[in-house]
């Protein structure tokens, strides 16, 4: 009789192990960038295309980097939360527009000149922000997604929290929900701004 309890126990342990495993989110891959300096970039600013921004310009401030694109459906879902955040909280949000044109999939990039892509990207990004509201202090344009690769972007939207020294302190993949904002991002911002 005793040995059957033992087998039953082992089976129950296996069930628990599998239940936990199945409930983990496989999309939530821990970023190796957390705790490392925010990768450098020097990208054109959406509102002032002749100017560029690099992460060093943000030194001394706690800031958010939010990766978005107008073709990204989940970005639309999180956008009202960001707009609300920007009105209430004194933490600058920098937008990183990721592959605005070539990420869309509706264009034949082999037939589009670089200048045309740039023009179209700025036009589309501006239109989207004026339609849905602009929570960003600035948006920078990553047309070919190279900066996205440096930041390990693999599923837009993504959000990074960068501290005063320019170190990435958190990465959230996927849309920001009120829960994520309230339970993860806000406490971290409060701590970093202390």
């Amino acid at each position, binding site marked *: 009789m005793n040995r059957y309890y033992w087998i039953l126990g082992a089976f129950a342990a296996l069930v628990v192990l599998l239940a936990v495993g199945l409930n983990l989110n496989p999309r939530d891959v821990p970023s190796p960038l957390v705790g490392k300096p925010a990768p450098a970039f020097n990208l054109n600013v959406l509102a002032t295309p002749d100017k560029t921004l690099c992460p060093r310009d943000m030194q001394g401030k706690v800031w958010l980097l939010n990766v978005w694109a107008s073709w990204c459906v989940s970005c639309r879902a999180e956008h009202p939360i960001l707009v609300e955040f920007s009105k209430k909280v004194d933490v600058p949000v920098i937008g990183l527009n990721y592959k605005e044109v070539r990420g869309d999939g509706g264009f034949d990039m082999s037939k589009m000149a670089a200048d045309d892509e740039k023009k179209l990207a700025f036009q589309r990004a501006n239109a989207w922000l004026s339609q849905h509201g602009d929570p960003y202090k600035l948006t920078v344009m990553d047309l070919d997604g190279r900066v996205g*690769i440096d930041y390990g972007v693999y599923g837009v939207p993504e959000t990074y929290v960068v501290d005063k020294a320019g170190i990435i302190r958190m990465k959230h993949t996927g849309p920001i929900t009120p829960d994520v904002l309230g339970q993860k991002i806000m406490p971290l911002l409060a701590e970093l701004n202390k």
Partner: protein
Amino acid sequence: MIARALIFALFLGSTVAIASEVNEAALAADPVAEKRLQDLSTELRCLVCQNQTIADSNAELAQDLRREIRGMIKDGKSDKEIIDFMVVRYGDFVLYRPPVKGITLLLWGGPVALMLLGLFVLIRYLRRRATRIADDQPLSADETSRADALLKEINPK
């Protein structure tokens, strides 16, 4: 149901075909570099469709990463430098063969440990059984005749 499965299979087949077509076009240009690209990209996981390698996947990100690798090969980077480039950005998860280190010890050692445990239990069981059989005393003459008598009682023939 079968029709749906067939359509799905066709769809899968077509994406694979497109992916290899794109590679083949560039393959002609520089076979050595393209071979390296192939080898490297089969070692790397596409984070969008997580059970495909960068070589198999036709996701945008996989295309971008193949382009990056191609660029790095052109720049004369070593395989290790290219793999490190990916790990720094996407973490160990990007490697199809996870490295052996503290956190992955259970992953690598687990199956071996389980097999050793199984062998141990099996050997112990077999030994015990062998000694139990050896320990069993054969019936004495008296016991044999009693057993025979009992059997006859049940089965009188």
